[in-house]
């Protein structure tokens, strides 16, 4: 039965059905054919999955990102990033990675960072002779920095389901996020020495402190946002959800009154767009909740746990196996759905082996995000490919060095727990 459900799910996903419908129909059919279950459990479990106050941080941070993007923040961020890192070999490439990192401070989604920064930077890259497939690979992978630097949608989902402090996870994301930025920039730098990448030897002029200081006021809005989010959460003033509300209001004020690039008449379309983006994510979480519940009912979690424990009782080997499973599934299925479906297994592993919750959370979050950037099913690469107006095959030609760079960071995070625990432990105390 379990195998049949998974086969049906994969067949639907690969034939092009939207992920929501594929998981939703698999869950519905599963509940119908399982004896002793009533079908009303299907909507009830969807409801229960999203009936959560922590999850509310999602629409708020999505709205804040939408307001900031419409307010023209991404263009200003790219200009600012060029003044910071543009003087290096492959300047524009570095600037786009750096911009994704700074954009991550207001946005919690990899796809949002890829499309916001990519739509500004990819046309300029094409003009400067960057290969479109290379640009798409770079932006498709850099986007995930946006989901590791807080706020982060995937951390909100993880925190709310695993009962782990979302604020703590946010703080744990900084070091890995910065490491990913450096890793991707180094990858560009190494490419710039290859004979077939002459375009990467261009720079955007010399570094000038004067230019940097001049550019800084244009992006203060993005730099101030993390102070509000983390400052508020750390000082205990508000929860992650309330931080989301405050950042929404802050983004509203900045876009309407400071940048003056958004008019009141744009508000309904901004709200609707934010609602659609939220629903694309939360809709999948809802049906994955129903599917995950059905899997638990059918003892899927026990099967997986027994498999893992039979393999080894060494916590590190179990964790590495779980990471491999997540990475593998991430190549085939949407990353948030995997997280929701595997959550009971993750919680059992956490209880059995007593991993630090921030450490385990960060490893899982990064693994799901890298899974989401690994072909064939790689949402970030899809988005960047369409912005670069190239073919997916071209993107795939260049994506692997970037994916491996991110994978290297994941390995560092796995083997050096300090990287993800030092900041939350310092601020929140050892948990």
């Amino acid at each position, binding site marked *: 039965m379990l195998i049949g459900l998974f086969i049906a799910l994969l067949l639907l*996903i690969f034939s092009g059905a*939207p992920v929501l419908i594929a998981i939703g129909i698999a869950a519905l059919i599963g509940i119908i054919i399982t004896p002793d279950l009533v079908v009303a459990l299907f*909507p009830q479990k969807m*409801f229960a999955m999203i009936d959560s*106050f922590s999850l509310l941080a999602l629409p708020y941070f999505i709205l804040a990102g939408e307001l900031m993007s419409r307010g023209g923040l991404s263009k200003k961020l790219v200009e600012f990033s060029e003044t910071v890192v543009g003087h290096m070999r492959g300047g524009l490439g570095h600037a786009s990675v750096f911009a994704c990192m700074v954009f991550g401070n207001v946005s919690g989604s990899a796809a949002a960072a890829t499309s916001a920064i990519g739509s500004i930077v990819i046309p300029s890259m094409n003009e400067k002779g960057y290969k479109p497939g290379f640009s798409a690979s770079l932006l498709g992978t850099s986007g995930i920095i946006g989901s590791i630097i807080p706020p982060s949608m995937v951390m909100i989902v993880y925190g709310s389901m695993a009962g782990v402090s979302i604020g703590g996870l946010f703080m744990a994301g900084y070091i890995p996020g910065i490491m990913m930025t450096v890793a991707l920039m180094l990858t560009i730098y190494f490419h710039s020495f290859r004979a077939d990448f002459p375009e990467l030897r261009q720079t955007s002029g010399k570094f000038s402190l004067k230019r940097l200081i001049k550019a800084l006021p244009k992006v203060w809005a993005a730099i101030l946002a993390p102070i509000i989010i983390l400052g508020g959460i750390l000082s205990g003033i508000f929860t992650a959800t309330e931080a989301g509300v405050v950042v929404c209001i802050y983004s509203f004020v900045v876009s309407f009154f400071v940048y003056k690039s958004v008019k009141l008449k744009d508000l309904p379309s901004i709200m*609707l767009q934010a*609602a*659609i983006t939220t629903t694309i994510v939360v*809709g999948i979480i809802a049906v994955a909740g129903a599917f995950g519940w059905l899997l638990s009912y059918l003892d899927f979690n026990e099967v997986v746990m027994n498999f893992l424990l039979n393999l080894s009782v060494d916590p590190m080997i179990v964790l590495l196996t779980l990471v491999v499973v997540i990475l593998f599934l991430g190549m085939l299925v949407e990353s948030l759905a995997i997280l929701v479906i595997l959550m009971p297994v993750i919680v059992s592993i956490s209880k059995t082996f007593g991993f630090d919750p921030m450490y385990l959370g960060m490893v899982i979050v990064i693994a799901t995000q890298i899974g989401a950037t690994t072909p064939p099913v790689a949402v970030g690469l899809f988005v960047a490919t369409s912005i670069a107006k190239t073919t997916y095959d071209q993107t795939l030609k260049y994506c692997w060095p970037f994916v491996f760079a991110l994978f290297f960071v994941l390995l560092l995070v796995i083997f050096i727990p300090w990287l993800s625990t030092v900041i939350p432990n310092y601020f929140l105390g050892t948990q």
Partner: protein
Amino acid sequence: MLEKIGKQTDRIMEFLIAALFILMVCVGGLQVFNRFLLNQSLSWSEEFQKFSHIWIIFLTIPVAYNHGSHIGIQLLFNKFSPSIQKIFSIFFDLLWTTLAIAIAYYSFIIMGVAKFQTSAGLGIRMDWIYFGMVVGGIYLLFVSIRKLAPQLRISSPKKGGL
């Protein structure tokens, strides 16, 4: 005729979603303001936001479907011939129809039970919350029928848009 009513319904739903979202942000802001500045918590604001969120999600699932925004993996699909694509496309719309009926009908069944429960903070009957799923399900059904209708009209190859 169907299209005209459809467009009107879309407009009403989209307005409702935007208005509900604005209201949710305002209540969230009010909650922070009350707790941070007036030092008193509101008993109802968390529930209001949670329930508005549920309504927003179930009303927006059909809107996102209508706009073609739901994430799907199109790699293989794009390699199919147009006629195979059309068959798959009809099949997916039929799946949406099935999902819509399941959500609307079974949420309605749950409403029958939920009306005996009252929410702790807002003090409203819980069937009102599930009602959002029923409305969303019916709207989803309506959108899927509108998508299916032109595709199933066998002798109308005009535009050929998939």
